């Protein structure tokens, strides 16, 4: 099964139909293990039980960046290789990525309330994630703004890649800005201070959430392919109606056949 084989949407649908139940099962098993482990993990000597929030915050934060990476590769697929499924993949990933980013923000702020005494701190990490979230929303707005998916795909691909180039710069700027304004209070989480008892559940949860994303993404891609079929069939129907008014309907059915995501 090569990428070329996958380029055929019908084959993609068939393959994913077989693959999805297994993926879903693996996700559920790993999530269960991860949840059990994070429930039994000991409290952190500094953060107390709130460290448990980290077990979902960190995987979501990781996914927020991972999904943008996936979209960037898909965008290269759209612009450079013109792979027919690339823009389907990019479009399907955006809302899922935005959801995970939202969760990262929400859990981060819920973690911050006991730690900082406030729900929102202009902390460097949270601020970067907030900007990332804004960019996800912008991207989704762009997808929604245009009716023709192939036209929107190219614009979205350019924006995604520009965003991918800009994200490190934004991250660096926000870190710099943050140290400028509050040099003392930096949240200490991660790095070498992490004990094995935290690391393993964290890792399991991260893998489980990544699998969750893959499952959801493939399912959303299937929907997107179907949506495009609906769209091209509707266009065929429209053109058939238009031409049958002129009286040349029967011939047109064959010349303006649907292409798109066939």
């Amino acid at each position, binding site marked *: 099964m090569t990428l070329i084989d996958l380029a055929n949407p019908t084959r993609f649908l068939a393959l994913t139909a077989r693959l999805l139940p297994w993926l879903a099962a693996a996700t559920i098993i790993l999530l269960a293990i991860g949840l059990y482990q994070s429930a039994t993990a000991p409290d952190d000597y500094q953060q107390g039980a709130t460290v448990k929030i980290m077990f979902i915050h960190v995987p979501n934060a990781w996914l927020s960046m991972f999904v943008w990476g996936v979209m960037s590769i898909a965008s290269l697929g759209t612009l450079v290789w013109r792979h027919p499924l690339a823009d389907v993949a990019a479009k399907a990933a955006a*809302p899922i990525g935005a959801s995970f980013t939202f969760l990262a923000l929400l859990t981060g702020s819920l973690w911050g309330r006991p730690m900082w005494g406030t729900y929102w701190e202009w902390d460097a990490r949270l601020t970067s994630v907030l900007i990332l979230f804004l960019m996800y929303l912008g991207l989704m707005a762009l997808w929604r703004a245009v009716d023709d998916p192939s036209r929107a795909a190219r614009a979205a691909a350019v924006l995604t890649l520009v965003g991918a180039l800009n994200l490190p710069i934004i991250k660096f700027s926000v870190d710099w800005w943050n140290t400028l304004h509050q040099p003392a209070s930096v949240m200490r989480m991660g790095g070498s201070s992490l004990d094995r008892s935290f690391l393993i559940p964290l890792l399991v949860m991260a893998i489980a959430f990544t699998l969750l994303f893959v499952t959801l993404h493939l399912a959303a891609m299937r929907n997107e392919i179907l949506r495009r079929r609906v769209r091209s069939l509707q266009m065929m*129907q429209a053109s058939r109606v238009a031409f049958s008014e002129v009286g040349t309907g029967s011939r047109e059915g064959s010349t303006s056949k649907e292409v798109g995501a066939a």
Partner: protein
Amino acid sequence: MIMSLGPYAPFIVTSYAAAALVVVILIGWIVLDYRSQTQRLRELERSGVTRRSGRSATDRP
């Protein structure tokens, strides 16, 4: 199993509940979307619009 979540239990529970809720919404959206798309494909097919070579649009080998 009883967990002691300490004084910050509401925050922890809210976090997990929010994560579960968002994931459930995502799954629900994807499932409903799938249903509505296949439904529309079937309707279009019934009204006589077919994909090329008369293959079914919803076919799954």
